[in-house]
């Protein structure tokens, strides 16, 4: 299988199920049978590493390396190096990670939802054209700019997915959401209004003085 076909959501799922490390070994740039498969893989995995770092996992647990099928010794070196690194980090959610076990797995669940969402897929799919040929208006972006945008999207999407995960358990008020997720309530309010405009969240009822919001089922 081509490394370009590795879905970031699968990566997050693997970690969520307790995997301690994931090494993706692809072809050299320029050797790709599908021309840009390994470039796609690198873009996707780079973005996934950024997300995993954001949620508090050690991003070295996910690595992208390159070697050709004829280079046995290089492959051995790569695997040995990764193995040593992983042994020094220890099990997932332990000493090697910023966020510890039970919370990390909860975050990984939200991360999987982020990586599986349309938004992340669309954005990362646009990376190569944006950096090389530009958008519809011929505006070419620098890598720095794109990565900065990605970082911002990761932060926002994580918070939005956490909100949606809470709302899937029943309607909630903004105050309760803000308290649960430790996000400032004006930010939660902005996310909720944005989601409302997109038709993903709707007003359920008003309990006392607080409006309660609920999830709107989406057609897939």
């Amino acid at each position, binding site marked *: 299988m081509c490394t370009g076909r590795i879905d970031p959501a699968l990566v997050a799922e693997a970690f969520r199920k307790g995997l301690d490390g994931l090494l993706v070994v692809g072809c050299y740039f320029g050797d790709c049978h599908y021309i840009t498969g390994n470039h796609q893989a690198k873009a996707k995995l780079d973005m996934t590493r950024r997300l995993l770092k954001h949620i508090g996992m050690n991003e070295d647990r996910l690595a992208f390396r390159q070697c050709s099928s004829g280079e046995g010794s290089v492959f051995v070196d790569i695997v040995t190096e990764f193995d040593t690194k992983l042994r020094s980090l220890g099990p997932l959610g332990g000493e090697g990670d910023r966020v510890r076990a039970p919370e990390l797995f909860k975050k990984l669940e939200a991360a999987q939802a982020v990586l599986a969402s*349309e938004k992340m897929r669309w954005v990362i799919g646009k990376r190569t054209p944006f950096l090389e040929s530009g958008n519809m208006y011929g505006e070419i972006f620098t*890598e720095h700019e794109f990565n900065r945008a990605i970082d911002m999207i990761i932060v926002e999407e994580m918070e939005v997915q956490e909100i949606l995960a809470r709302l899937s358990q029943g309607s909630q008020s903004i105050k309760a959401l803000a308290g649960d997720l430790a996000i400032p309530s004006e930010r939660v309010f902005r996310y909720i209004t944005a989601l*409302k405009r997109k*038709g993903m969240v709707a007003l359920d009822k008003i309990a006392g003085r607080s409006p309660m919001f609920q999830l709107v089922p989406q057609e897939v």
Partner: protein
Amino acid sequence: MDDKSVLIVGGGIDGVREALEKATGGEQVTIVEKFPTLGAERIPRDRLIKPGDAFVNPDLDAVRHNDRIRILTYSDIKQVKKDNGKIRARILKHSLRVDNTKCNDCKACIKVCPVNMFDDFDEGFTFRTAVDYFNPATGEYNIFKEDQPVCQRSCPVNLDIRTYVGQIADGKYLDSLATIRDRLPLPGSIGRVCPHPCETACNRQYLDEPISICFLKRFVADIELDKGIEPVYQTPEKKLPEKIAIIGAGPAGLTCAYHLARKGYRHVTIHEALSVPGGYLWVGIPEYRLPKELLKREVDLIAGMGIDIRYNSRVGRDISFDDLRKDNDAVFIGAGCHRGLKLRVPGEDEYEGKGIVDCVTFLREQALGKPFDVKGKLIVIGGGNAAIDSARVGWRMGFDEVYILYRRTKKEMPANPWEIDAAEHEGVILQYLAAPVEILGRNGRVSGMKCIKMELGEPDASGRRRPVPIQGSEYVIDAQTIVPAISQGTDLDFLGKDHGLAVNRWNTFDIDEETAATNVPGVFAGGDVVTGPDIAIRAVAAGKKAADGIHTYLRSK
């Protein structure tokens, strides 16, 4: 149009009502609204689905179907001018960034749009996405796009700062340099001397400190130098035959020549009065701020595009302005401000050249390596960058003491603050709130100066507090050399008597702001000779504008 027409700015509820009233009164009405929708319509999608539920201002329908009302949505007013008893407005109508003929209203874009931005519709109370602004009347979507970034907008040449700084962050140094050179042919020189209005405007300063936009330019230019890469400025294959003469090889003239060569003009001649290129960059800015070798290299690169730079060719002495006009299809005047203004105090004319040297001459003679009688005390009068440069150059020449005399305080000084600090650090003594009254001399040479103390009064037209002399506070200081650096003016004697060019009361040219054309067809002007003494990057901008103007003029001839 009828003789009576009304422009209504803002198509909100009030604007719409007013438009209807005026139109009913028989006037022609134009509504200009900055959002793509009229009448503050922006209803959430979920409410539009039920038609009866939607709030629609009944006036809107009437406005849309009124023959007397012209609606310009998504437009900005760029300029309002009085014109012969009428008011004339320039309006920029933006085009929508979504091709709505291809849009099938699937709403997927709104769901996946990754840009969460503060909604200017409700003053940033909520978030919205960049693709938004559903227009209920037409069913149109639009992607909101900000205007130029604040740094690019504040840069006179509108350098694409965001891109080149981003490319440096990516490590693509030479690409970044190419981005800069697309508009600015002198990155190394400007990167050293620019007072960077872009950094003053930079939004990053509200977080910690502005991005060092100016020095980043110098950084990439130095990388090229360091690696020993010799770039070649490309000119197009197709050459244009017209001849163009440029007066002055300063930043304006060089930039104008550069952009003309890039458009394909192969007969571009620069007439430079001095034996060196660069104008003020060479003879005004001292070596310690801008190494001559580096400037020479950048000028050589421009000359390498096939531009003929004739040194020691002073227009009015070696070649007449009329001949230039006759021999060429277009002339660009970028002669600069090379005459120091006078103090207008007694004794000044008497000792001219005998201890009194204006800052332009002082700096020029130092830059050209002419000998100077260095002894005793030097007093520089003024508070601009030219004054600081003169003082710091004087300090390097070896005067015993160097003073700067300024009539206001340090806070009001127009010089760059970092230059003032550097001068103080080097040992230049700054005396604030003092002004010259009389130049004193002995045996045909300057021996000192009588000054008067000042105090700050009410703010004047420039917003700075006006200095007021304190009566009876005169004092005398000894000095062997006095350098007035109070401002510079243009020297237009080279034009001859009957040039016919419109010159205003500041002795600078009146030009068309769009094309840099003067009132005489085929003659263009830009740089300090139009603006008065100003920063280099603004002269570069004027050179570029003039190149575009000359191109348009010659192609439409």
